[in-house]
């Protein structure tokens, strides 16, 4: 690992000032599970590391009347255990439970997973279907953007110099919302998703779908939301032909690549399979 100077500021303004001062030669460390590996492989060699560990107020899960707010330093292990993550947000727990290993989950943070911006980022698809807003600190007063605008390309987010992801916020889903996250992996554990699928359905009277969102991971340069579901799912009940059309739409919109874990063809095929399975699983919950 290349040498670096280490800083652990006590506040976001302090951290931001350091990031601005040192520019592109500085990196933020949260849990460190991605950063440490990249530094060890010499993929990156930051000369300055800004650790967020001394900054209070970034490690929290708050469920209020308006919605759920999660601090960027919240670990996956904390997410797994939290009773504030109620049934309609369960997709978050589904994802947090399978990220890495128990040892990784003890330290890996939500903010780190998002800012590392792997196309397969585990916690991204659930956050996308839940309509998460990224709350970003900056010295000008900060900004809030929909998470789908957060990711730019593999390993790149919209975070500018001096900005720090502070938290994510999801409005309270209305009654009748069901969510899930599932993924395909080569191994049963300790693996990166070949594909990740997260689905939100809002079900009304007569089991008619009132709202539907599907997010996909590892099948495009960034985690994505499937467009055009309103026509296919909303206003319908989950009959077989509706499920098939939705899964075909999801498969058609993804842009997978060949890599060491899988082929593009298999990924596209698996999107269709897993979207179908997830819809059937959700249907069983509200039937």
């Amino acid at each position, binding site marked *: *690992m*290349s*040498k*670096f*100077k*280490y800083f*652990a500021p006590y506040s976001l303004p302090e951290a931001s000032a350091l990031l601005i001062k040192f520019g592109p030669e500085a990196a933020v*460390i949260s849990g*460190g*599970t991605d950063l*440490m*590996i990249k530094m*060890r492989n010499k993929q990156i060699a930051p000369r300055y*590391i800004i*650790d967020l*560990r001394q900054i209070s107020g970034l490690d929290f899960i708050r469920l209020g009347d308006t919605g759920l707010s999660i601090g960027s330093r919240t670990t996956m*292990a904390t997410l797994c255990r939290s009773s504030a993550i109620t049934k309609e947000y369960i997709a978050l727990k589904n994802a947090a439970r399978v990220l*890495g*290993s*128990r*040892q*990784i989950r*003890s*330290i890996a943070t939500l903010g780190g997973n998002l800012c590392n911006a792997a196309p397969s980022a585990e916690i991204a698809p659930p956050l996308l279907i839940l309509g998460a807003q990224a709350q970003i600190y900056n010295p000008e007063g900060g900004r809030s953007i929909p998470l789908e605008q957060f990711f730019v390309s593999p390993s790149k987010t919209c975070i500018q110099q001096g900005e720090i992801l502070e938290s994510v916020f999801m409005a309270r889903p209305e009654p009748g919302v069901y969510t899930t996250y599932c993924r395909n992996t080569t191994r*049963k*554990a*300790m693996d990166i998703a070949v594909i990740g699928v997260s689905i939100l359905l809002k079900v009304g009277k007569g089991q008619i779908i009132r709202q539907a969102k599907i997010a996909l991971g590892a099948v495009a340069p960034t985690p994505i939301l499937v467009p055009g579901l309103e026509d296919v799912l909303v206003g319908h009940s989950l009959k077989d032909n509706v499920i098939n059309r939705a899964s075909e739409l999801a498969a058609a919109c993804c842009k997978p690549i060949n890599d060491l874990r899988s082929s593009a063809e298999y990924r596209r095929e698996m999107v269709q399979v897993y979207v179908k399975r997830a819809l059937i699983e959700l249907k069983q919950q509200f039937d």
Partner: protein
Amino acid sequence: MKKTISLTVNGKVYRVEIKTTQRLLDVIRDKIGLLGTKEGCGAGECGACTVIMNGEAVNSCLVLAIKADGADILTIEGLAKEGSLHPLQKSFVEHGAIQCGFCTPGMVMSSKAFLDEHGGKKLTREKVKEGISGNLCRCTGYQKIIDAIIDYNTKSNN
């Protein structure tokens, strides 16, 4: 860049001078001299370096030493009491869950952390497998490790 950190390991407080690039694993082995914790992959994949930090199992190869300032660490050496193996360790021995022994410290620490969280009730083999899924063993095929954990858990609950 050199710094001094203070951490508690197996109940004893250590003040250690470290380089910022050093990991908790390096401090445990090279500075404190506790060699039970092993470096297998150095990348958080094999679990051989597992220790319990502030109550949770972590890969010590992924924790910068400076981040362990003020932490409470339990390593494999901290399990035995007055020269007597911890019953979980004894269970590993009795069940033949140790061959070359390289994965064993990390495996035992992961098992302990898992049991501390989930141990108070009957455990299925699937649940135990999930619990130790962050630890690789190239020798045993895992079955005897799972036997050891389940047997220990059953006995502790009775």
